[in-house]
């Protein structure tokens, strides 16, 4: 079968297509269900984005609804919520990154210093455990700890907090959101660093030791440079997601009393689009978010390529 491939060079596109289909029709048949699936559930909705530029009415459909240009975007940018949503989205991302990025690295480094293999294994096993717990359960536990006489509220009142249940306080939302994320993902996020640490060449430590470097110096001059490229790639990847705070956990956690700090663009898209059925406006807001996301992601990847010669794809 593969011998035919060599003579395909100077053929026209139509002829090449014919030969390709003749040789590989089975392959394309296997690909067909996947193409159909993604087409229906991922690409067909993209046509629905047209709604963002229309005054969409269910009766008239996407093709029949009135075209209104950028007016939904204008409404969003001038709405009193715009700055609040943008600020909340960026702050949750930024503070999240500030804690949830370095801590898994520190955790991996601490684990790397443990000599007792069994202890190390137990710690790792326990640290991955929260990853398997659902968001609903995590938020449920958070509600239990954050209620008026819950653990976190009690601890907070030891430090002078008197505002009642922390779970319904706008001041506490970000801390609780980021803290519980950290609890759930610290172990999981450390896996890649643990494997990067295991890949550092042991002879480098040997050499450093002969040069008289203690453990701390070795960490500074051997370990960290050894995992620096992993750190940089992952940091850039995370920066690329700075506009992408998901709605699933937010809408489980927030309430009217915490909207002020909790409401992000994606949760607003859900509330306006699904609960209020304002389809066009919600789609417009979502499109803004997706485009902003994509721009940040491509910029991050571009920088990554420049800095490290390792692009994400």
């Amino acid at each position, binding site marked *: 079968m593969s011998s035919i491939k060599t003579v395909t060079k100077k053929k026209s596109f139509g002829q090449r297509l014919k030969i390709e289909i003749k040789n590989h029709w089975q392959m394309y048949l296997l690909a067909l269900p996947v193409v159909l699936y993604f087409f229906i559930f991922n690409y067909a909705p993209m046509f629905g984005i047209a709604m963002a530029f229309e005054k969409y009415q269910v009766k008239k459909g996407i093709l029949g609804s009135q075209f209104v240009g950028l007016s939904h975007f204008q409404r969003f940018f001038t709405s009193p919520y715009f700055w609040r949503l943008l600020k909340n989205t960026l702050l949750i991302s930024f503070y999240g990154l500030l804690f949830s990025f370095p801590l898994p690295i520190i955790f991996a480094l601490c684990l790397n210093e443990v000599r007792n293999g069994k202890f190390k294994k137990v710690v790792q096993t326990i640290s991955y455990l929260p990853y398997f717990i659902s968001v609903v359960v995590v938020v449920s536990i958070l509600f239990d700890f954050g209620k008026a006489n819950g653990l976190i509220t009690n601890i907070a009142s030891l430090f002078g907090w008197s505002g009642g249940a922390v779970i319904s306080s706008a001041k506490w939302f970000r801390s609780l959101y980021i803290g519980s994320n950290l609890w759930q993902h610290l172990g999981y996020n450390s896996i890649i660093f643990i494997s990067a640490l295991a890949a550092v060449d042991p002879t480098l430590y040997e050499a450093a030791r002969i040069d008289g470097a203690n453990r701390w110096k070795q960490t500074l001059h051997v370990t960290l440079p050894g995992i620096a490229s992993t750190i940089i790639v992952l940091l850039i990847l995370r920066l690329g997601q700075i506009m992408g705070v998901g709605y699933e956990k937010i809408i489980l956690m927030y309430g009217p009393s915490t909207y002020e700090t909790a409401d992000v663009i994606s949760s607003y898209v859900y509330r306006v689009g*699904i609960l209020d059925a304002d389809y066009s406006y919600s789609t417009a807001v979502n499109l803004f978010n997706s485009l902003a996301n994509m721009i940040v992601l491509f910029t991050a990847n571009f920088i990554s390529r420049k800095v490290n010669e390792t692009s994400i794809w």
Partner: protein
Amino acid sequence: MYRRSTGEKIFAVFNTIFLILLCMIFFLPVWHVAMGSISDPLKVAATSGLYIKPVGKVTLGGYRLILQNSTILRAYGNTIIYVVAATTFGLILNILAAYVMSTKGLMFGKAFALFVVFTMIFNGGLVPTFMVVNKLGMMDTRWALIIPGALSAYNIIIMRTSFSEIPREMLDAASIDGASEFKILTSIILPVSKSIIAVIILFYAVQHWNAWFNAALYLQKSRDLYPLQLTLREIVLQATENSIVADADGQDVMIYRPLIKYATIMISIIPMMVLYPFVQKYFVSGVMIGAVKG
């Protein structure tokens, strides 16, 4: 082995203490719920803080109550159906996609890869996707929780990476023997890919076991199709344990009410906790491939 200095020994002690503390932080919230679920219902609500041991006399009344409750049992059954069906469906498509992507020399191979990867970067968004599912007539049916969201480009890429590492000679030998592509996939590739299949099954199964949002979105009128996570959300987060209490009866119900949320959380995480130690090694290797390629 070289000898450790005093400073390093002190560090080792602190490091061990730090890691033990961290493990307690990871573990105690789950323990708290477990202890709460078997506590004395009359005392538990009034006791604040962390439950290190059961409050008052140990009782299994909370579990007895929810295991007799038709809403919770039905939700449990629904979740099992969704996990099995969606994972099977997703796995089959995932294998096909990964196989095509790992095959070199296809004229449209690059286009296909781009077609798959692009779904990770951009999507139509919440409302347009909702409308497509609605148009397909899946609203308020089980299909809405089985088909949409069953296939993930990320998992395809992980599996493709693993398939690409299979030596080409094995495949070439088979195609010279005239085996069809499907035959090559099922009789050569799949038998040597058991561990990556386990990883992908694990990823999909955990995802579907823990999912709640699509159910809230697509099952607006069909409470009897709810998966466990959505029922849990109603009980714990929207404080509707009354609805659970309402369709049971007897004195027990009123007494054990405070235990319902703890016991329901426990029955939703126990399967994961039991399964987890057995699948951990697959899990770690899968995350590693994903981290490198994702």
